[in-house]
């Protein structure tokens, strides 16, 4: 039963990756010690910095809360060595780009981190156009 459920989840995730919405990960470390899978946050923010370096790419966002206060959130992405295979480059996200995402919130008290994200541009389009096509061509 579990394996059937895992299979369905895998199919769903693979589909979303191919559509360019889920950012592929690459195991360097487990996410659960740092991020709580039970606490999902949804954010919209403006890119202030995109660090496209191994072992994990990071995205920094300015996010405005309901009181108009702006604070920084740090988004952990996959390894660039894997992201490149599906079409990502250091220029995929430029400063000022607005993105929308949902993902697991960081565990440390007061911290503002997210991982394992599903992310789009402001208009709901994928971050990397055609990334899935490039992945299929390589493999």
């Amino acid at each position, binding site marked *: 039963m579990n394996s059937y459920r895992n299979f369905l989840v895998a199919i769903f995730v693979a589909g979303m990756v191919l559509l360019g919405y889920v950012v592929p990960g*690459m*195991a*360097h*470390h*487990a996410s659960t*010690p*740092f*991020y709580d899978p039970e606490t999902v946050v949804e954010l919209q923010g403006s890119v202030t910095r995109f*660090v496209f*370096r*191994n*072992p*994990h*790419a*990071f995205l920094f966002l300015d996010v405005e809360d309901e009181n108009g206060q702006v604070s920084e959130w*740090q988004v*952990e992405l996959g390894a660039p*060595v*894997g992201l*490149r295979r599906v079409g990502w480059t250091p220029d995929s996200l430029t400063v000022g780009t607005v993105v929308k995402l949902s993902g697991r919130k*960081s*565990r*440390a*008290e007061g*911290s503002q*981190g997210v*991982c394992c994200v599903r992310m789009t541009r402001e208009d709901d389009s994928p971050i990397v156009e055609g990334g899935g096509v490039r992945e299929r061509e*390589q*493999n």
Partner: protein
Amino acid sequence: MKLKTLKQMVIRFLVIGSIPLGMQLVAMGPESSAQGVDSHIPDLAGIWDGTPRSRPVNGERVPWGEENFPDLNARAKAYQEVWEEIMAPKYDCQPASSPAIQYDPYHMQVTQWPDRVLLRYEKDDQLRTIWLDGREPTSLDFSLQGFSRGYYEDGSLYVTTTHFVFDIAGFDDYNGIPSSSQKVVTERYWSEGEELNMTLTVEDPMFFNGPVSYTTRWLPAGEDYKLAAYGCDPEASRASVRFYPSKYD
């Protein structure tokens, strides 16, 4: 298929050709005469894909799960008590080593020379040299990847690696299991159809009550795939550490 046969012939030619050049491999024992004329030398060369396309991704229960989890001695359990995730030296870009690096979900390149096999890992830009010429390690050969010797037999490459340095997460950083300078890693590589297969065994009497093994596989990489430089960045490596609620704070 024809190309593969040609590659095997070239390897055999190089091996046999090296003997008159003073390498005298045949005279050595099986531990060192990897390239004896009678040995069946498999063609393992190429770039191999170890990503989720080939196998499940590593984690707390992969590749060390219920069936093959090590029987830890009291010393190892004491280390586990002290351990927390952010102690792992990988957060300062220290490369992975055996038995983890083989299972990391990246590509690997195998190059076969007459006197050595080179294993180049995309993860952490690591290069292991498997010596086939019978040379012995010295006390200066301790390193993160250890000292590897190998031989071919019955279509497989057998590797034994010793001379590892102590590593607080040197067996498995998902479970906080260290490894010592007594760690011995043996590997058997063989090809089956299009796959590269490996069975790896670890012994470390400093921390384990017995040997443990896992078996895995790689698939051939895409036709034009080239290993990418990893270039671990210390800032990117530590960036998530501040999200960890340390038990020591």
